[in-house]
């Protein structure tokens, strides 16, 4: 199991254990983490699973794809260099302990 911490916009932290191979979005949705909607189920069609990767984890989560970049342009909250669509971050053992911050709004 891989540990992921979601930090809500108001600072509330939710820590969950997720299975390897699931995405940061799926892990949030199946554990009822507020602040990630992920309505399209990970098809990069809705821009409602926006998150900011914690500075310490930026190198490990990798870079955004071009398609992801384009979808993020339409996200409801501010997009920064640490913005990712959480459906595009797949959990593997190197991400155990990952911390992501959630935007003010997704819709």
């Amino acid at each position, binding site marked *: 199991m891989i540990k992921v911490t979601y930090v809500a916009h108001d600072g509330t932290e939710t820590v969950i254990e997720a299975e390897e191979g699931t995405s940061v979005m799926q892990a949030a949705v199946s554990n*009822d983490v507020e602040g990630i909607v992920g*309505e*399209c*189920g990970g*098809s*990069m*069609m*809705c*821009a*409602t699973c926006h998150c900011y990767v914690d500075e310490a984890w930026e190198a490990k989560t990798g870079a955004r794809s071009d*398609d992801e970049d*384009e*979808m993020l*342009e*339409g*996200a*409801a909250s501010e997009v920064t260099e640490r913005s990712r669509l959480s459906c595009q971050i797949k959990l593997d053992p190197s991400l155990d302990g990952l911390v992501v911050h959630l935007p003010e709004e*997704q*819709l």
Partner: protein
Amino acid sequence: MALAPLDEAITLDQLSSDPYPIYRRLRAESPVLRVASTGRTLLTKAALTKAVKDNPELFSSDDPKTPMKPAFRAHTLMRKDGKEHFVERKAISKALTPKRIKADWGPLYAQLSEEYIARLPRGETVDLFTDLCGPLAARILAHILGIPEASDEQMMRWSQLLIDGAGNFGWKPEPFAASDAANDEMDALFAELEPIRRAEPDGSAYALMLTAEDPIPMSQIHANIKIAIGGGINEPRDALATILYGLLTNPDQLAEVRAQDAWDKAFEEGIRWVAPIQASSRLVTEDTELGGFEIPKGDTVMTIQASANRDEELYEDGESFFVFRDKNPHQAFGNGPHHCAGAHVARRTVGKIILPMLFDRFPDMTLPNPDEVVWKGFGFRGPINLPVVLN
């Protein structure tokens, strides 16, 4: 493993007039059922409908057996999968993102809503379905798409003719003749507006698709706009009428929605309760299994979102309109790659702009005879009249 049971009793008329008691029975007794009158295998539990939508390789949208192609005179993105679908979807979804809808278009939507609501007479009985829900949905969509030169009447007529054609499973010639005529009108208008949208791009879907760095073919640009016309008027119209019905027949909930400014919750509950798009079809690409039954390749399964949205496993008393549910994981916008492209527009316009504005102007609005409201539709559903007294 056996094939799913076959039902020869349920009729299309029953499904159109009052499907919910049937769905409740099917969820309990036969959540995977071949229904002869529809020619499809109906799936009525939320886990099944979601599993199908989330697996587009096995449950394909690319179904050549539907009348959608002649109705739209195109193979549209609704009926494509994978990369092909993604490219065309991306081309139009840029006009429909949360950011664009909120920041760029919000003020215009508010202004249009104000104009249409201001026209309604105070103190009289008005059918909001015909006098507000349809025309306002049409006007907003015309602007989003970049064809505001089209009249409300044209938008609504084209939309209905495209839907009638796409639903012409009896393959009769008349609906296709009517949709052909509508296609001619639309193509002519799009051609006329093309140089204007190119010269002065206005952020509309048409302008964005025309001026994209690597544009999709013109035939698909036209097809995308037509899909949006066919799929972007009836749904917000029916959603608005359904939510108004729900609130006006539950005055205590309406009072609480007002007190908490919970219009967005009312929106989500309305579309859960009676999803404007009740059912969708997917073609099975390989022999598989659903709910313990054999589903052969070539079969067409029908996900009944309407029923998934009332599934007892997810909802307590799902048959009732109740805005203040703890959770509302409804499937009214679908799931997977074909998740409704207009979801953000609908949430913003109906949920955040039109509903509060309407109740602000007519705080004592009533629906004196709820029994007079007629509900209709199997594939698409909503009230077809909404006689309210505006005060």
